């Protein structure tokens, strides 16, 4: 890469972020202005232009909360309340994170299992794979509320139902990526294992599995993001008990727009952290396996 980090990364991304925040402020002004004007007319006050702009930035239930309102809400609910309190965003993010991770672990395990089955059994590829692909064209999340209700009826509540929706969403990218990865060794290398009289197990663990590692990490990045979406949607029909999804639903019931935006940003931060940590593990594993930096 010529140009370097500052010129090709920091400057463009930084200025884009700046433009976004500015556009957000402008949008907040124009979206909140009609309501504020209406309010001012009712209470018979006529503020100056700058005062009016200020008013649109500090409404209690704005149509578009201004960035600093969201930031303030985030700060208050993240750092000033106790982590165990129900007002704390950390608490809600933690609830969502736990079912995300459980679902992600189960989904990854299931996906790898299916991939190994498909690679070693042709009948599974022909009969099972088309249906897995078809199952992904249907909106899985539409099934989410029903799964929650069904599982609640047979006394499975709490973490597991939400995690199962995450599993549902995350096994597919892993399965497809791993099928590709396990098949990625070249014919020459497969022939070589035969020349060395390697057993099936040895071929699998010493050739196919290491060859699939790059594919594995690419697909689990998609899978962990999908898991988070699954966990958030899974929290919607549980009657808004806890988690990012329930914060969103409660916010939309009571028109607490600032809360919605704060929950949304908290969810995004969790997503970014998850994808980032997967990337970190990927780099560690690949270095340990002797990849060039």
């Amino acid at each position: 890469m010529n140009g370097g980090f500052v010129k090709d990364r920091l400057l463009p991304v930084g200025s884009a972020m700046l433009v976004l925040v500015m556009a957000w402020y402008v949008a907040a002004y124009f979206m909140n202005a009609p309501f504020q004007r209406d309010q001012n007319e009712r209470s018979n006050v006529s503020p100056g232009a700058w005062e009016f702009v200020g008013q649109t930035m500090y409404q209690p239930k704005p149509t578009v909360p201004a960035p600093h309102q969201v930031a303030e809400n985030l700060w208050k609910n993240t750092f000033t309340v106790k982590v165990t309190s129900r007002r704390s965003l950390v608490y809600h993010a933690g609830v969502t994170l736990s079912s995300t991770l459980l679902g992600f672990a189960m989904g990854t395990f299931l996906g790898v299992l299916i991939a190994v089955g498909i690679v070693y059994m042709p009948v599974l590829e022909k009969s099972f794979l088309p249906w897995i692909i078809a199952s992904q064209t249907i909106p899985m999340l539409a099934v989410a509320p029903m799964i929650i209700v069904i599982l609640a009826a047979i006394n499975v509540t709490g973490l597991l139902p939400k995690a199962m929706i995450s599993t549902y969403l995350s096994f597919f990218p892993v399965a497809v990526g791993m099928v590709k990865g396990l098949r990625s060794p070249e014919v020459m290398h497969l022939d070589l294992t035969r020349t060395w009289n390697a057993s099936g197990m040895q071929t699998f663990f010493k050739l196919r599995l290491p060859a699939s590692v790059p594919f594995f990490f690419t697909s689990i990045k998609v899978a962990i993001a999908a898991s988070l979406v699954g966990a958030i949607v899974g929290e919607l029909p549980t009657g808004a008990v806890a988690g990012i999804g329930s914060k969103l639903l409660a916010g939309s019931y009571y028109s607490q727009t600032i809360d919605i935006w704060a929950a949304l940003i908290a969810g995004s931060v969790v997503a970014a952290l998850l994808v980032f940590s997967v990337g970190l593990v990927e780099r560690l594993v690949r270095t340990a396996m002797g990849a060039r930096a």
Partner: protein
Amino acid sequence: MSGAQTAISPGIPGADATIMALGAASLVGAVFALSAAGSPGMASPVLAAALVSWLAACWLNARLSAWKIADGSRARLRDFAVAAIFGLYILFLWEVAVAVFGIPFVLLPPPSAIGARIMGSLPILAADFNQTVLKAVLIGFVGGSGAGFLVAVIADRYRFLSNALLPIGNLVSALPIIGIAPIMVIWFGFDWQSKAAVVMVMTFFPMLVNTLAGLKAAGRHELDLMQTYAGSHRQTLGKLRLPAAMPFVFNALKINSTLAMIGAIVAEFFGTPVVGMGFRISTEVGRMNLDMVWAEIAVAALTGSVFYGVLALIERKVTFWHPSYRRG
């Protein structure tokens, strides 16, 4: 197809006989299991018949998929048959399991009841389909994908812009965008406009990221050739780089087809007029009318599959030159 072609020609001696026998065995077992499934005291014979039938079908599938068929179209027919047998057996085992183990209707209705419900409530399903798919999904999908494509083509012209948008787009693609649904409902109201807006935002970023990546996919040699011909930016774009980006664009369209359905249905959980697939699912779950929920899911599944299939078909026509479609 002529008669000689439809008959399965035996590649292996005796393959026909085995396949016929296995097919007959599984069919007989299935018919018996289905006809006796409801009657009391028949649980274990029904289960045994279902098991035998299922094992026969598994063996049949293994036999069929191990069969080497040289002819391309007949091999495709075989692949389709194997997948169809598997799918039918899922439905069959589901039906038998519900009857034999007495699974309550509110937990898991049998496929036959779902089929009956679909037939019985076609007008409601059609109205929901119209509201959710024809309005929210299609408009949002076209708007979001189109905007993503346009922004990518413009951003590609300016290095600074594409450097700014690519990392942001990659990040946003990983975010739970579905969470903006309540915000969109506040902005655009309960009707389909808010759902279309959610779909638009959800489909925008995958298209942006994929198109930006695709526009970089044209080969060095071809680009040099365009320069040799003194091709302008516009000509290079239209004749080389956009066609080369098409596999990426279609990849994004396929991802977006699923995202659009999910976005529209989930957005309806946050508030909607009294019509729409997401609305129906959430209210009928509340009233424990699980057969209606499954009927909606079946419609959604069918819609999603057709949507995906149509895109795959267009892709095949547009990117016929791509290695994955070339035979040889």
